[in-house]
């Protein structure tokens, strides 16, 4: 009796959640796939007929937005990594009793609504703001405008997903055995050498996790482009959103969503391959 109970217990525990995820995540993807091969307009003659041309047409019409999304998200991810690393490092190794305060500061942006945070950046980057005037004065914003440019969108993406970079970085740095770093110093490594050859390779899992957690939501984002970008900075998320919700061109929108998901999967697999072999080389070097 108890043996049977033990055997079915996990399925009983998993049951409700699995049903929910299958029914409202997996099945909808199937329906979206079906919709992407439809012809016609909803309400009139929307029907399934293996219309693969939705894919080729959507791709050729919106290839610039695809490229732009990956470019913006890529730049934002690299910037996030550069900004996040020093803070994560300080929280892990130097903060002492300030650790919890700093961790709180990292998650604090999440306690304000995403849209309002982005709109706050609209205020900060507006033409009359001191930030814009300062950047203009030192020659970083020659035109005197930052809003409605690609830089503004990238700035917004970088800011909004920064905590996703800091937290995994901190987690992996915090796990490093400090004695390894001390050992490298005992063996006459300079501070830079010991960072590059010990700390950095050991934090690789955090870098991989952080870049993925930043890049994936950034590619699909359309809120930043909507508020901070101009008409020339629309990302693929904006296109999908407007095709679905304003133009009711469901088949094209569904096709674009699928391509976006597939491209992200491919990018992630390539990245993990690459990052994995890098980490492996780091292990050999040690």
């Amino acid at each position, binding site marked *: 009796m108890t043996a049977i109970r033990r055997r079915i217990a996990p399925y009983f525990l998993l049951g409700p959640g699995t049903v929910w995820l299958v029914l409202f995540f997996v099945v909808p993807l199937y329906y979206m796939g079906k919709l992407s091969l439809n012809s016609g307009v909803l309400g009139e003659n929307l029907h399934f007929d293996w219309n693969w041309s939705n894919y080729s047409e959507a791709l050729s019409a919106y290839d610039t937005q695809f490229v732009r999304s990956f470019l913006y998200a890529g730049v934002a991810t690299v910037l996030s990594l550069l*900004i996040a690393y020093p803070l994560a490092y300080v929280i892990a190794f130097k903060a002492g009793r300030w650790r919890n305060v700093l961790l709180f500061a990292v998650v*604090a*942006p999440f306690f*304000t609504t995403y849209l309002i*945070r982005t709109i706050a950046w609209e205020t900060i980057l507006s033409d009359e703001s001191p930030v814009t005037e300062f950047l203009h004065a030192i020659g970083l914003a020659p035109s005197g405008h930052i809003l409605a440019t690609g830089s503004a969108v990238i700035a917004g993406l970088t800011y909004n997903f920064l905590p996703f970079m800091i937290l995994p970085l901190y987690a992996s740095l915090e796990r490093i055995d400090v004695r390894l770093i001390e050992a490298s110093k005992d063996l006459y490594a300079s501070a830079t050498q010991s960072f590059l050859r010990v700390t950095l390779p050991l934090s690789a899992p955090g870098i991989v996790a952080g870049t993925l957690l930043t890049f994936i939501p950034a590619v699909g984002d359309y809120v930043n482009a909507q508020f901070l970008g101009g008409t020339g900075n629309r990302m693929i998320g904006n296109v999908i959103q407007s095709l679905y919700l304003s133009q009711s061109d469901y088949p094209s929108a569904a096709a674009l969503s699928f391509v*976006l998901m597939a491209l992200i999967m491919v990018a992630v697999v390539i990245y993990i391959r690459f990052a994995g072999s890098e980490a492996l080389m780091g292990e050999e070097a040690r």
Partner: protein
Amino acid sequence: MNAESTGTRAWRWLREHAVNIVAALVVLYLLIPIAVIFVFSFNDPQGRYNYTWVGFTFEHWAHAFSREDLTEALLTSLKLAVLATVISTTVGTMMALALVRHKFFGRRLANFLIVIPMATPEVVMGAALLSFFLLIGTFSLGFETLLIAHVMFCISFVVVVVRSRLIGFDRNLEEAAKDLGASPFTTFRLVTLPLILPGIFGGAMLAFALSIDDFVISNFNSGTTVTFPLYIFGAAQRGIPVEVNVIAMILFFGTVAAMGFATWQQRRAEKMTAVRPEQEEEIAPRPVASAA
């Protein structure tokens, strides 16, 4: 010569503290938008747009809930977040228990099913759900579909948080309860649950935060129902009322308070486990069935 040594000393100080200075600047960068939201909640704009500073007023804090449509949107969001949190936390905790405690066929598949929604952009999830709702036609877009969507994207995060808490769990405590004659349910209620409660609470808080903040997926599946983020999006075109900033700050301070409570509760749970080793030493050591 003296000036030179001050110079070199300053340079050395700067080099030693460079990382700290950069970190401090990053913290500042993280907090600036929050400060802007806070400051502009006291603004007294003349036109419809709350983008430039005009003058200081307490007016909007005093009448934070004076706009009926905004208050209604906020209440919808709160109701949605509470329901989504309760459902996703229950279901997610059960899944985490299964994954940490049991070895079973299909475990890897279950793990995959939990991870994949977190690796999918929100736009795709929103679009897929809308396609599903449109094609099957049994659900009319509104509160119901929003709840379905919110529970869906919260489950994975709850599982991840609760699982991380369960992994460090000392199974010997449960064995001890059983040895003392506790039924499985009593053991769960009196031993397991209090110890994993901080993890569950952490998962619940994350679910609540995700739900109340969600815009993208909600935008696809809301129909005519308006949540707080959707209200802001709609208002952005015609100018966002200052009350939005006020409510955002109220939510901010509310979350901070909840965080403080969670930390306090976790400390208490840690104290509970910390007394254990001494008690164990008092009892004669006896073999305990090892936890796999």
